[in-house]
């Protein structure tokens, strides 16, 4: 197992290098630059700025300088937010995005798994159709529709919750967490229903039934572990998607997270911030996928054995 993890971590290095190279090439190929503006920029100023940020060096020199700095943990200054380092910006947004992601994923898991189990116990009945059609609606309804809708109902009409913010007024974290959580709850509901259905039809479940175990015991002691495998493998990409994709929810609810930099930095041609956020999210995706694989192996005895024997 340790060898497996070590190997995967080693693989991550070339993956990150490729990500950096491609991103670097793409942003420098894109038209415009961090200092182009609607008002004409005097050539003297452009020259001075390019010199200050090493943008007057040949592109490969810039690339190697950047790699060297990154290896030393220096992601450079942001071009747009003068005086702020990329690290500073990421450090300010990251805890917020993580917290939002954590609440959302908890909501998604609780709602999704409950609905999925409920549906799988009586397939093709109302108990199946109702949660599944709710889930389908959840998948189809994008957050930029659900978010404003929830604000309208709970914040503006009922005045139960604040319309926006993050930690400013008590309760302002509820609506964004629910909005982001619902979309993923829907996926998780469908996945856990599928996983459970497959497991519930297997021989060992029939054996358990024959032993006279209650359905609750069967579900929670025997079936859940196998039935949750699709959910677990979904969790890696889901967590990464949740964190990097929180842009819309962050915008709707005016949350000072990371998501908006991921998008805005590209529009602003803020080269260092684009690279910084990309590296950050790429690293997260690698870590989450690895964690999901570890849990999958741990949950599935067959995979566990094979990974051991391979090693």
């Amino acid at each position, binding site marked *: 197992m340790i060898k497996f993890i070590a190997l995967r971590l080693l693989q991550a290095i070339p993956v990150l290098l490729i990500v950096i190279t491609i991103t670097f090439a793409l942003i420098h190929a*894109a038209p415009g630059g961090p200092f182009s503006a609607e*008002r004409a920029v005097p050539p003297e*100023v452009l*020259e001075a700025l390019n010199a200050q940020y090493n943008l007057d060096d040949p592109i490969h020199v810039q690339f190697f300088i950047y790699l060297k700095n990154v290896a030393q943990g220096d992601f450079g200054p942001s071009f747009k937010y003068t005086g702020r380092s990329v690290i500073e910006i990421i450090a300010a947004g990251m805890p917020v995005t993580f917290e939002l992601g954590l609440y959302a994923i908890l909501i998604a898991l609780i709602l999704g798994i*409950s609905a999925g189990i409920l549906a799988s116990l009586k397939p093709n009945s109302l108990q199946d159709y109702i949660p599944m059609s709710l889930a389908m609606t959840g998948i189809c309804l994008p957050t930029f529709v659900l978010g*404003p809708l929830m604000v309208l109902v709970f914040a503006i009409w009922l*005045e139960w919750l604040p319309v926006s913010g993050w930690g400013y007024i008590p309760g302002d974290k509820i609506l964004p967490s629910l909005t982001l959580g619902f979309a993923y709850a829907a996926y998780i509901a469908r996945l856990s229903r599928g996983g459970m259905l497959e497991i519930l039809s297997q021989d060992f479940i029939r054996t358990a039934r024959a032993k006279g175990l209650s359905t609750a015991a069967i579900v929670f002691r025997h079936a859940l572990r196998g039935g949750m495998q699709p959910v677990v493998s979904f969790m890696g990409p889901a967590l990464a998607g949740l964190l990097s994709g929180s842009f819309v929810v962050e915008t709707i609810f005016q949350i000072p997270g990371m998501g*908006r930099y991921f998008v805005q930095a590209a529009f602003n041609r803020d080269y260092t911030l684009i690279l910084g956020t990309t590296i950050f999210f790429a690293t997260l995706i690698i870590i989450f996928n690895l964690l999901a694989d570890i849990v999958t192996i741990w949950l599935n005895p067959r995979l566990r054995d094979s990974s051991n024997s391979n090693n």
Partner: protein
Amino acid sequence: MYNARMTSLHIRINISERLLLVLSGIILIVSSTSCSLDWETNVESGNRDGVLHYGNGDEPQEIDPHLTTGIPEFSIQLALFEGVVSKHPSDLSIQPGVAESWEISEDQLTYTFHFRDNALWSNGDPVTAHDFVYSWERALRPELGSLYSYMFTYIRNADKFFKGEIDDFNEVGIKALDARILQVQLKSATPFFLQLLDHHSYYPVHPATIEKFGGMIKRGSQWSRPGNFVGNGSFVLKEWKLNRILTVEKSPTYWDRDTVKLNEIRFYPISNRSTEERMFRAGQLHLTNRVPNEKIAWYRKNDPESLNITAYLGTYFYRFNSKVVPLGDARVRKALSMSINRPQIVEHVTKGGQLPAYTFTPPNTDGFTSEAHVKYDIEGARKLLAEAGFPDGKGFPKLEIIYNTDESHRMVAIAIQQMWKKALNIDVSLANQDWQVYLENESQGNYQISRAAWIGDYLDANNFLDMWLSNGGNNRTGWSNQEYDANIAAAAKTPDKQERFRLFQKNEQILIDESPVMPIYTYTRVFLISPSLKGWDENILDQHPYKHAYLQSDEQ
């Protein structure tokens, strides 16, 4: 079978119970917060404590006045700094600032400012003429990279210093005769010079603080952070949380502090219009930066008191690239400009009370209103197009309008596309481009027709008309006209207002005859404002000196 059904029922109850538990948990959280159902809104608490909650568009890039170009930044700088002079909150006339009086020499080339003795920095140091000399040198040093250095071009030798032709700043026409007398010498008479002094590029910075955090030409120094910051405005920086909030509080050292009524202003960087509108509706903001287009009609009907629409010193227009066929022909450009129905665009497309623009300079720009204007004349336009060799649009090449991605730009472009098709029987296509791609294409002349806008930096027609100088950095149409250039040069040397206006009138006429650009509408500023915010006078620059603003709810 019977047994299985029983257990299934059992588990259903079991799971339902769990679900119930979760649900009741959620309801509990919701209801625990709804105990504060009647919580005080920001507007209510703000009215009581004198705290203005201000929706300010975007996160400020920086608050250093020599490094920024944006309006959200300027809204904050206006609270934190004060120039040599300031502006009247409603008629925008020049008012004393750091200088309590000034003299202008007869030839209008020398301005001598006398500083008040109680003008202080927020750390208690006196604001001196030497501080201004230092600050303006800083703004002119190309190494710092100020994008507004051209605002200094009217001062003697400022250009030469900026371009590196002279190294000694003493040769530039900016001198401190003593700690309280600042003298400025101009290249030529510049009637709007005092207007410029209230622009953020002319704001002073505290030399000792700048030196402490890396020196005059250090970009991105930490001097403008809370704790380090020193300013001379009516407010001082209190807190700045990235992407969350920037708070300024009343400065105890400001010379006119008795006039200042607000205790704090909180600037929120809200880039999404709909979010901002919802926050306003929930009483979280006194003031928004904009209003979603689709909400304007609703506010007009249901809450007109909160909706503010004021004329704004800016023109929305299309550039025609004179270097491409057939737009090199003035008749074609004029025909295109004559055949769009501007009132229809502002009434049915933009809907924000914008004024149809028939001239490039907005009407009544510091007293100047163009007499020449584009006529809406489809027959005339068809005739011009026929003269240019395209009777009934036959043989007219398919042109393309580029615009930066934005729903309202798209709608305007569609309307114009249809108007041209109907009036002139010509086809144009539309292409939306990412902002940077659009800027690149426009500045490289890589376009046929492009959407554009110009917002005035100072209140004078020159700020609009000098864009179309042959070598103007903002021209980008490839169009040039010697007579036009000569008129602008002559106007710059003319101290007499009427004579300047006469020259500007000539140029407006040239702009109509040659139509290198097609004005579409004059901007309005559309925003939501709480009725409790007073002293927020309407003006064409949408500039509101905060020392005159105060909060008063109607119940009080």
